[in-house]
C-alpha cells in the first residue's frame, strides 16, 4: 500500500512536470505544474511530514492560480491565449534537463546514505516549529523582513493610484477621490 503511494505520486509528479513543457496552452502548462506540486506535497505527507506536505499543497494552489492569471496577462503573444511553448532552444534545453535529471537521479543511488541514528520525533510539526522559532529564528526574521520589503516595494512600484492621488497633496481630502465608489471610509 505505502509503496503503491510512492509509485503513483512519484511518476505523476515527474510526468506532469514534463507535461508543462509539452502543453501549448499557458493555462494547461500552469495546471500541469500545479499537479506536479500536488503530487510532491502528497509525497511529503507520505513521508510523515504532514505539515510540510499540506502547506506545499495549500501554498502551491494559491501560487499557481495567481501565476496563471499573471502569465496569461503578461505573455508576449496576445494575452497568453495563442499556442506557445515554455522553452527556448528545444534540443539544447531538452538535453540539459535530461542530463541534470539523470545526474540527480544517479546521485540518489551513488550517495553513501547514513544509517538512521535514533527514531523520528513523535510530533514532527512541533519539532519543525521549535526549530524555526528557536535556532533558525534569525534566518526566519531576515527572510520575513526581506520578503515583506519586496512585497511593499513591488506594490509601491506597481500601484497606479497612491494615497496622494486619493487624499490630495496634504492627505486631507475626505472622502477620497476614487474612480469607483464603495469600500472602506466612503
Amino acid at each position, binding site marked *: 500500500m505505502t509503496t503503491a503511494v510512492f509509485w503513483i505520486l512519484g511518476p505523476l509528479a515527474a510526468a506532469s512536470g514534463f507535461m508543462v513543457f509539452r502543453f501549448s*496552452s499557458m*493555462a*494547461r502548462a500552469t*495546471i500541469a505544474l*500545479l499537479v506536479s506540486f500536488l503530487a510532491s506535497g502528497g509525497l511529503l505527507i507520505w513521508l510523515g511530514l*504532514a*505539515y510540510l506536505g*499540506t*502547506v506545499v*499543497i*495549500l501554498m502551491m*494552489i*494559491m501560487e*499557481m*492560480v*495567481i501565476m*496563471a*492569471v499573471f502569465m496569461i496577462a503578461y505573455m508576449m503573444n496576445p494575452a497568453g491565449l495563442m499556442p506557445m511553448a515554455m522553452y527556448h532552444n528545444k534540443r539544447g534545453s531538452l538535453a540539459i534537463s535530461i542530463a541534470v535529471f539523470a545526474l540527480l537521479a544517479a546521485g540518489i543511488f551513488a550517495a553513501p546514505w547514513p544509517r538512521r541514528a535514533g527514531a523520528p520525533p513523535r*510530533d514532527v*510539526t512541533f519539532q519543525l516549529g521549535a526549530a524555526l522559532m528557536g535556532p533558525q529564528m534569525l534566518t526566519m526574521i531576515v527572510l520575513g523582513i526581506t520578503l515583506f520589503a519586496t512585497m511593499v516595494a513591488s506594490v509601491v512600484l506597481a500601484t497606479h493610484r497612491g494615497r496622494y492621488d486619493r487624499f490630495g497633496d496634504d492627505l486631507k481630502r475626505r472622502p477620497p477621490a476614487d474612480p*469607483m465608489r*464603495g*469600500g*472602506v471610509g466612503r
Partner: protein
Amino acid sequence: MVGSAPLWAVLVVPAVLAAFTVVAAGWDAVLAARSAGRPVTGAVLAAPLAEVPRLLAAQRRTTLAPDALLWRLGVAAIPAAAVLSAVVIPFGHVAVSRMTVGVVWFNAMEVLTWAGLWMAGWGPNAVLSLIGGYRYVAQGLAYELPLMFALICAATGAQSLNAADIAAAQGHLWFAVWMPAAFAVYLVSVYAFSFLGPFAYPAGRDLAGGVTAELSGPDRLALEAGRWLLLTSGAGMAVPLFLGGGAGPALPPWAWSAVKTLAVLGLLVWGRRRLPVIRADRYAELAWVVLIPLMIAQALAVALVVLTMGGPP
C-alpha cells in the same frame, strides 16, 4: 479520546455530507417558498432533489473551442474539495482522518476551489464564464488571509492543529464565546469559499451566472452541489473549531455534533437569502484594511490568554 475510523469510513464522508446538504437545500427551498408567499408543501421540499435527475438527464452544452480537460477538471474539483475537506472534521467521537494537521488540511482543500473555479471559468472559452472565474480569484485574495487568521486563532487557543484536539480544548468555554471576531470571520469566509449568498459574485446574476453560465447537465449538478457541499463542510468544521465539538448534556456526542452543524447550517442558509452580494474589490478593501488587523489583534489576544493562563479558559 477521538477514535480512528476504519478505511471504509472514507466512503461514509460523502454520504453524510450529502445528507446534511440535502437538509440545507430543503431548508433553503422552505425559506424561498415562505418569502414568495407560497405554501410549504412536500413538493417544495423535494424540489432541490428533483433537480438531480433532471440535470443528470439533461444534454451537455458545448461551446466553440473549449478547453474540455481543464473545464471538467475544474468542475469536478469543487465537490472533490468539499468531500476532502470534510475528511478531517470530527463527528462526535469519530474522525475519519486523525491527521495531526487537520486544520491546515481543511484550509488547503478549501483553497482547492481557487484552482477549480478558475479552471471552470477558463474552460468553456466564453467571456462571462471567464470573468466569473477571475472574480473568484479576486474574492479568494480578499477572504483567504482573514480566514487563515481565524483558523490560527482556534489552533492557538487549543495549542493544536488537530480538529479533535481543538474541540476537546473547549471543555469549559466555547471558542466562539471568547474569540467572537474569529468566529464571525470564519462564518463569513464559509460563504466566501462556497461562493454563496453575499459572496455569489463569481456566479453573479449580473454576469448571467458567471462561472455557471455555460454549465449544463451533470456539470452544472457537480458545481452547484459542490458549492452547497462546501457550505455544509464549512458549517461542520465550525463545530469543532468554535462550538465545542460533540460536547453537551444528555445527548450522545454524535447527536450534539449533528445538532450544532444543523444550527450553523440553518443560520448560514437563512443569512444567504438576507445579505446582498458584495463586490470582490469592496470586500478586498474591507478584508485588508479592517479584517486582517482585527484578526491579528484577535490572535494576539488569544496567544496572551493562553500564555498567561497556561491554556484555554
